[in-house]
């Protein structure tokens, strides 16, 4: 049976650190004292001294020894929390079609009221869609239309442009282009292109729009 201080790994400080990290919750001095046998039990003073040393050891690390109401615990420092918090991130499913349509209409017809969107879509726009788009900072209220009820006018933001890697709204394809496209995704999705080597070469030589029409033509003769 190992005894306290036989090796550095079983020094009082090492044992207290192991005990604190094993428990994962605050431990009072008396609980810490209780893990020792009558033969090797240190005094509260010795435990306190070892804890102070342990706290010093943690000065340059991403953790800290903290005394809280229930005793001492080792916890993640606020400074490292941004990374630690990402351990518990959850990525929910995709956005609904309704949200995408609403966003597209705001992008192409801004400034636009909720009523305008509903008129084009033929259905009401749920409030949580607007809220979600605002929370992502993709849209914002840019003003109010001077009609009864003063409805809010929505427009897109710089965050929206940055997210989609656009310099300005003109970089979006024109409506005429959209109507002519059989399927929009393959042509516009740059990542999809890079996965297919033949296509990415074509892109390197030509601007995006040219590439799109070229492709569309290529496929027609079949």
């Amino acid at each position: 049976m190992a005894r306290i201080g036989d090796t550095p790994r079983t020094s009082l400080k090492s044992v207290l650190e192991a005990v604190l990290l094993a428990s994962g919750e605050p431990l009072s001095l008396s609980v810490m004292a209780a893990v020792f046998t009558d033969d090797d039990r240190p005094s509260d003073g010795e435990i306190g001294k070892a804890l102070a040393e342990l706290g010093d050891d943690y000065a340059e690390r991403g953790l800290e020894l903290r005394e809280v109401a229930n005793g001492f615990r080792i916890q993640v420092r606020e400074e490292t929390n941004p990374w630690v918090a990402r351990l518990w991130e959850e990525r929910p499913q995709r956005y609904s079609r309704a949200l995408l349509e609403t966003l597209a209409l705001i992008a192409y017809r801004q400034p636009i009221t909720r009523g305008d969107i509903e008129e084009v879509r033929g259905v009401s726009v749920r409030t949580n869609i607007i809220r979600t788009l605002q929370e992502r900072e993709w849209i914002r209220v840019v003003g109010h239309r001077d009609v009864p009820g003063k409805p809010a006018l929505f427009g897109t933001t710089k965050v929206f442009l940055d997210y989609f890697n656009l310099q300005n709204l003109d970089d979006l394809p024109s409506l005429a282009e959209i109507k002519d496209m059989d399927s929009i995704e393959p042509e516009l999705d740059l990542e999809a292109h890079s996965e297919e080597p033949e296509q990415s070469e074509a892109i390197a030589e030509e601007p995006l729009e040219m590439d799109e029409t070229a492709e569309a033509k290529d496929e027609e003769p079949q």
Partner: protein
Amino acid sequence: MEPVNDQPGSGENQTVQQEEMPFAIVQGQPYTQLPKDLYIPPDALEVFLEAFEGPLDLLLYLIRRQNLDILDIPIAEITKQYMGYIAMLDELQFELAAEYLVMAAILAEIKSRMLLPRPQGDDEDEDDPRAELVRRLQEYERFKQAAENLDDLPREGRDFVIAEAFVTDRKVVQIPPDIEIGDMLDALKDVLSRAELFGHHQIQMEPLSVRERMTSIIDRLRKNPYLEFQMFFTPEEGRMGVVVTFLALMELTRERIVDLIQNEPMGQIYVKSPESPGQVYE
């Protein structure tokens, strides 16, 4: 048999070797040793038999107890002992006996075959009648050993604990999903074709640069709700820029989003946000 005072689960027991652990408790008394002779108190038999993991285990015990080589079992002697156990078992009861009885039958069969004279000449090919039993015993013994080795491995919770630090704010963060620009355009295309289906909607869309300019004009008016008309024009943008701004202002006026105000003929034109109280710019 020797009762020991160690209660299972007392502090010192943890480091004690497996084979010294009491394997049975009879009338409150733990036993660390199996009986050395064949006499077993009837009420103890059941627990002893439960200490064995079946007939192979019992047979291995009998072989080891006599320090016999597993490869050279004196079948007759072992069978006699084994049958002794079975006999008592049988008196007591029970379904447990079935698997032991099968083994007894196997032993008896081997014994009888050993007694028969072997045909001369082909004894090279003739299998030792014990071969199958020995194979099974050896195979069982390997895994009995493996189970003990497994039990000796450091085990989470018993020999080590996972270290864990406290996290003050351990809440699940919802990451919003990503959108591909193509998804958005696909959605728009759907809306447009649906709107066309209904026919009565006039979907006129100005060039996006005009739309964008409309938003930025409103934005400027939010900060300063009363601005001179020409302040929205930047000569550096050139003719196209001027046209875009002009179209944007016209569209905003048409949609009653901004007001154009001229206090006197040929006077200064102001652009005013309708939200703002009609303060007069002097």
